[in-house]
């Protein structure tokens, strides 16, 4: 394994009738959608609409109450399937291990699973950090990084797995517009470079329309629109239009 380069084994994801409740609160009300191999699929929706819960179910951190998730047609509920496909997730907060350096964070997967010797891990880590534009930051601690840099380290950590499926949870939240643009370009560049299937959860309209091959809009646990960015933009549904065109109304100055 060298620094992640090309990955022709990207996977397709299918979600069928997915439901999730927390107590009496219905979070996901039966979602159905398909993500094609190599596609960048963006899930948009207002805060609290169940987007992050959906991602956690896809990567197996939470179990659905009803329905199923299929990777290349195989249900992820069997542990062998989760082991068979390489998946990675970029968390909203980055979720870097604060007690480890940037280099240790990025190389953690290889080191813990003893996939490479330490000097080889160091070389791969340096290459991967270079890919995300963070060359020479191996010895820094996460607390010394800006929000955007943390997100890019998290992307590097995800890349080291050579994922076939990569999930991004609000990758541009808490970032300034320039850093958000850099992350968006990073997602596009990685997709072009390694053809990895990407599912991006975001409520950032600029990011969604900038990177998506297809978009699904979730409102209150249900998909209200799905299609290419143009199709979603032209959807007359008031819930979709309200979300896509939400602007601050300035009071009239008298």
């Amino acid at each position: 394994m060298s620094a992640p380069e090309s990955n022709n084994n990207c996977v397709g994801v299918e979600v069928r009738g997915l439901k999730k409740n927390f107590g009496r609160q219905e979070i996901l009300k039966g979602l159905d959608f398909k993500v094609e191999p190599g596609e960048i699929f963006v899930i948009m929706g207002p805060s609290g609409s169940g987007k992050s819960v959906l991602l956690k179910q896809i990567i197996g951190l939470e179990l659905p109450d009803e329905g199923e998730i299929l990777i290349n047609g195989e249900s992820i509920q069997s542990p062998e399937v989760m082991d068979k496909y390489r998946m990675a997730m970029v968390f909203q907060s980055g979720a870097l291990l604060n007690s480890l350096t940037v280099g240790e964070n990025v190389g953690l997967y290889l080191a813990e699973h003893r996939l490479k010797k330490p000097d080889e891990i160091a070389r791969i880590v340096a290459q991967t950090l270079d890919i995300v534009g963070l060359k020479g930051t191996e010895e820094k601690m996460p607390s010394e990084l800006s929000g955007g840099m943390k997100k890019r380290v998290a992307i590097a950590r995800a890349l080291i797995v050579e994922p076939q499926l990569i999930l991004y949870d609000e990758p541009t939240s808490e970032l300034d517009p320039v850093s958000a643009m850099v992350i968006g370009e990073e997602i596009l560049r990685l997709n072009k470079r390694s053809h990895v299937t990407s599912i991006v959860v975001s409520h950032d309209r600029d990011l969604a329309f900038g990177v998506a091959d297809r978009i699904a809009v979730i409102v209150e646990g249900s998909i209200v629109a799905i299609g290419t960015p143009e199709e979603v933009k032209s959807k007359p549904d008031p819930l979709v239009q309200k979300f896509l065109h939400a602007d601050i109304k300035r009071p009239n100055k008298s």
Partner: protein
Amino acid sequence: MFENIGEMLVLFWRTLMALPMTLRQRHKIFEHFFEIGNGSLLMVCVLAFFIGGETALQTGPFLAEKSFGGYLGGIVGYSVCRELAPILMAILIAGRSGSAMAAEIGSMRVYQEIDALRTMNINPIHYLILPRMVAIAIALPMLVLFAILVGWVGGGIVSAANNRIDIPIQAFFKNLQEVVKFQDVGNGLFKSFCFALIIGIVSCHQGLVTIGGPRGIGRSVTKAVVNSIVLIIIFDYILTRVLLK
């Protein structure tokens, strides 16, 4: 409460099952061992010296007055090694290291670091719990052994220095040697090993079930320390009863 006990037993069982991974996690074990052991050494030393001294001071004048001063070494030696050192050091380590474990793991849980480990197929039991459990299970008995020795020295010095007791240090240790057997020290160390497991499991469990933000972490730390101390005292009675000659 019963749910918590059940979860702790499951966590303990899973940690036992992970024991074959101990060698692989040796670097992390050493880091935690150093933090628990070396970081607490000075405090243990001071505390143990005064525990021994206070025990001598409380019992010495009365025994000396009744002409039983010669038995002071045995009384101090026996009570320090079988009871005082194990329980007080366990309470000290629960406050110092148990709280740190709960806070560290709790914050990792709250800030999704544990979820990140799971997405990388890294078992949190192997990576987080096992090293802490093994480290505390080795460190606490070693600290207690050290505390026993320092406690005896403290008792001896106070017995010789206090003019109401006035027992020469040689006489103190001669009686101690006659009364205290290796088995008594072994009992104290066995107790401290059990207390270490209690502190480790309670604190790690509280860390893993942390919810909410900084307030949730604070609540977990408090629970970890209080629950550890309560369980230590209950188990101390049970172990004392079982190990009684």
